[in-house]
């Protein structure tokens, strides 16, 4: 039997966190390097899983399974990945060391929370048993809650409680739906459920609709789909840099991943029936997020609202019902993780230097920090979707795939693309161009070697994926195609 790669990827961080937790504050260096080492080891494993993933073999690979709790409907410890989970696992594994490196000044507990968070996220992406998935899905909220609540900004308590209550209300409804599905289908195995549930005549269309709604609301809160997004700006603004990076980079993708893995394959008819609503909300999210982003004076809040808009694109693509659109949606998930993750890392750099992050607090920074300005420009252009950088391909595929199905929504979404360029370039102009408005910022210095250590890899990947989007698309194609096919069958 091969090594249990997914178990290692999932539990290595938690094991490291547990091992590092007894260390005292004086041993901060050990904890920092230990956390970085563990997350890099996970990255190595994830890359190995990536290269070993055979797009022509079984759709689900690296499967591990054993009985965990023998009930009459047994609960299994089943792990396995398809192309979609693979992409998200690699994204998570890639962002985590960067987030850790960017939090070098934080106390020990911060790193331990990050490691446990990684376990939760990896587990949720790998789990192929609904119960197991739910354990990870909810379990990861706790470290995130502590990250925001303990190490966040001035309104951290409000933001963290809002974050956790919002998500929990969604998840408990999903729990009820999970129980219902598990009992009706006599299994909690995700693959079996994907096969059984769409064909079950015992579940009336109306019940299906409710079940879909329970899953969908839970995921929509995570995405966040308008109007469930109100927790996001607060959480992002108050979270420490690493928290924002992981929140935007990975946690939001849990929502879209949930739609792809559970909500659509389980209830294709209901998904079809709700498509107009979801597409409308996604489009509103794109426009509303963009307009709100234009009005922000806090850079972090601006990026947070831009996330609402970007995730709207992902949702639009996923619910387009075409392979191009859904592929674009998945690629856009990865792209958003990279470009928004990079933006939060960049904002973190100047925040550490100045403890300010209002747009008005800066001006003419291109003169003061030329290297930083260059990196920021690349990421800005990636976020806007400039051809040659990663954002372009995803956005293009989404619009291309969605247009035949939802022409009006796509037209509005295309307006969102323009608005995206407006607010990002406006931000760039105000912060970097013109004369230096605050003389006291003259001496803050450009990015140092430490910052470059975590900024360069992500910028490199942004450029790489812009040139070779097929790196992701080829791996995800088959899994996405399966989802799209199931979705289409629901139309009958």
């Amino acid at each position: 039997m091969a090594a249990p790669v997914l178990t290692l990827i999932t539990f290595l961080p938690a094991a490291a966190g547990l091992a590092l937790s007894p260390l005292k504050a004086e041993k901060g260096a050990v904890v920092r390097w230990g956390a970085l080492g563990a997350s890099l080891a996970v990255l190595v494993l994830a890359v190995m899983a990536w290269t070993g993933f055979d797009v022509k073999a079984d759709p689900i690979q690296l499967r591990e399974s054993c009985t965990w709790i023998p009930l009459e409907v047994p609960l299994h410890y089943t792990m396995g990945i398809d192309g979609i989970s693979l992409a998200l696992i690699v994204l998570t594994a890639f962002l985590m060391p960067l987030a850790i490196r960017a939090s070098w000044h934080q106390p020990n507990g911060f790193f331990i929370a990050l490691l446990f968070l990684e376990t939760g996220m990896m587990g949720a992406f790998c789990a192929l048993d609904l119960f197991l998935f739910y354990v990870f899905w909810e379990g990861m909220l706790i470290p995130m809650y502590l990250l925001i609540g303990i190490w966040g900004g001035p309104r951290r308590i409000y933001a963290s409680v809002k974050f956790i209550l919002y998500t929990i209300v969604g998840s408990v409804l999903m729990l009820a739906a999970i129980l219902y599905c598990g009992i009706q289908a006599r299994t909690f195995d995700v693959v079996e459920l994907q096969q059984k549930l769409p064909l079950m005549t015992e579940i009336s269309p109306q019940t299906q609709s409710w079940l879909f709604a329970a899953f969908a609301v839970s995921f929509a809160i995570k995405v966040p789909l308008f109007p469930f997004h109100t927790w996001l700006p607060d959480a992002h603004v108050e979270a420490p840099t690493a928290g924002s990076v992981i929140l935007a980079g990975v946690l939001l993708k849990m929502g879209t991943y949930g739609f792809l893995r559970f909500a659509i394959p389980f209830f294709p008819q209901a998904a079809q029936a709700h498509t107009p609503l979801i597409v409308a909300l996604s489009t509103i999210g794109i426009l509303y997020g963009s307009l709100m982003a234009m009005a922000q004076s806090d850079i972090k809040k601006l990026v947070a609202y831009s996330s609402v808009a970007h995730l709207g694109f992902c949702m639009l693509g996923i619910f387009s019902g075409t392979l191009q659109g859904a592929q674009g949606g998945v690629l856009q998930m990865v792209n958003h993780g990279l470009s928004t993750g990079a933006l939060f890392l960049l904002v973190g750099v100047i925040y550490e230097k100045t403890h300010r992050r209002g747009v008005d607090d800066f001006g003419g920074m291109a003169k003061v920090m030329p290297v930083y300005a260059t990196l920021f420009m690349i990421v800005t252009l990636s976020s806007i979707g400039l051809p040659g950088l990663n954002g372009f391909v995803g956005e293009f595929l989404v619009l291309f795939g969605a247009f035949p199905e939802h022409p009006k929504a796509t037209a509005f979404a295309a307006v969102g693309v323009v608005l995206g360029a407006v607010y990002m370039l406006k931000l760039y102009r105000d912060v970097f161009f013109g004369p230096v408005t605050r003389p006291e910022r003259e001496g803050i210095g450009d990015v140092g070697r430490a910052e470059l250590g975590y900024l360069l890899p992500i910028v490199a990947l942004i450029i790489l994926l812009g040139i070779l989007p097929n790196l992701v698309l080829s791996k995800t194609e088959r899994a996405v195609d399966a989802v799209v096919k199931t979705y289409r069958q629901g139309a009958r």
Partner: protein
Amino acid sequence: MIVTASDWMSILPALALILGAFAAVAVGTIVRPEKRQGIAEFVCYAALTVALGASFYALSKGDGYKTVAIDGFHSAVRLDELALFLTLAIVAATGLTVVLSADAMKGQEAAHGEYYGLLLLAAAGMMLLVEAQELITFFISLEVLSLALYALTGLLRRDTRSNEAAIKYFVMGAFASGFVLYGMALLYGATGSLLLPEIASRIASKSIAGPSLVSTGVVLLGIGLAFKVGAVPFHQWVPDVYEGAPTSVTAFMSVAVKAAGFGGLLRILLTAVQPLAATWGTALWGLALLTLVVANLLAVAQQNVKRMLAYSSIAHTGYILAAVASLRGKTVTESMAIETGSAAVYYLFVYTFMTLGAFAFLLYAGRGDRDAEDIGDFAGLAKRRPWSAFAMTIFMLSLGGIPPTAGFFGKFLLFKSMVHAGETGLVIVGVLSSAVSLYYYLRVVVYMYMKPEPEGSETPRFGFNAGLVVLACAAFTLALGLLPSRYLNLSTTSIAMLLR
């Protein structure tokens, strides 16, 4: 009457505690004051060890597919797996309370033998309650545990809150006992039997004096027991009594009484009046709904953590009641009833550790002669004691039903059995109220981790024994969430036996 070996065996766990109780009281009068507490503790440990040994011995006879059932005293008591499983919970709760008391009662006038004697007596009453198969025995056990608890509540006789709590508890408890007794009288009058299986067979064969008498009797009995386990609207005594009683007693009371009360309730409902499930199920359904909503909303408003835990205790009664209520359905098969019952019993077991741990933390983090009760007392504790603060976080998350803790798995089982029985509406109320509950549980976490300790505040006691209990309970809370199989099997067979 000849008392046989199996008679003795059937009450051995309780008997050990009763003898221990006498010994502990004797210690209180004979031994010199400064040594009393230590020796009384030792007596308790000895008695509990015997009880535990007897339970495990009885359990070991039922290995494999054979199940345990030791009848005693002409079927007045029956030591079966339900009784044994809950006895384990009661022994664990009592043992942990004794450990806790070493800190809680240190230097108290009340630390004399009678405290330990009453504790053991109450536990003995509980053990008899969960194995009682006959109404008179049931009532006597209920009174033994209640009377001991009234006295324990008022133990701090110079503390007005403790006195007030004792009076309230006594008046309300006596009232409830009256209901129970009246209900029993009606049941006896209608069926002509005091034995639970006998009552069941007479109801099933319709050889009863009047169907309305039976249902009135069941309702009265139910109301009485609802008082004891603290279900809304019979819950008003709970917050005051929990707040006023010494914290170690509150800890003991909140978990052990619940285990025993529900054990007794389940036995009556599932054996004696099983055919009337549709009636009592609907009544319990209403109680459960009311309890879930009211208790969780009231808990949100509490600034005193001890009171908050009291409301939380009521809320958890609601979850268990909701599961039991789901047996009312017409489509409920025996296997579903087993699922439901075992989920309830498992939850009681889980609840024991998470709640006891939380109360132990109140003692652990106390300052001077006050326990940590006000939410402000928790500020900054994570800085001072990261491990035990983390343990408290585990208790709060477990009570709130967040994985991977035992509380989550327990709730998962409860809700699953309810969905299975077709009570989806009640499940939705249940999950939403548990989301609400997270708000007040997390407030403790917020204070411990996210608020700085006020300047110049006194160093908390951080008693060694209380800390020990906190860590032990945290370990159990995690273990029962991650690897529940062993105890889950036991809880399943315990209910399966009852229904056979």
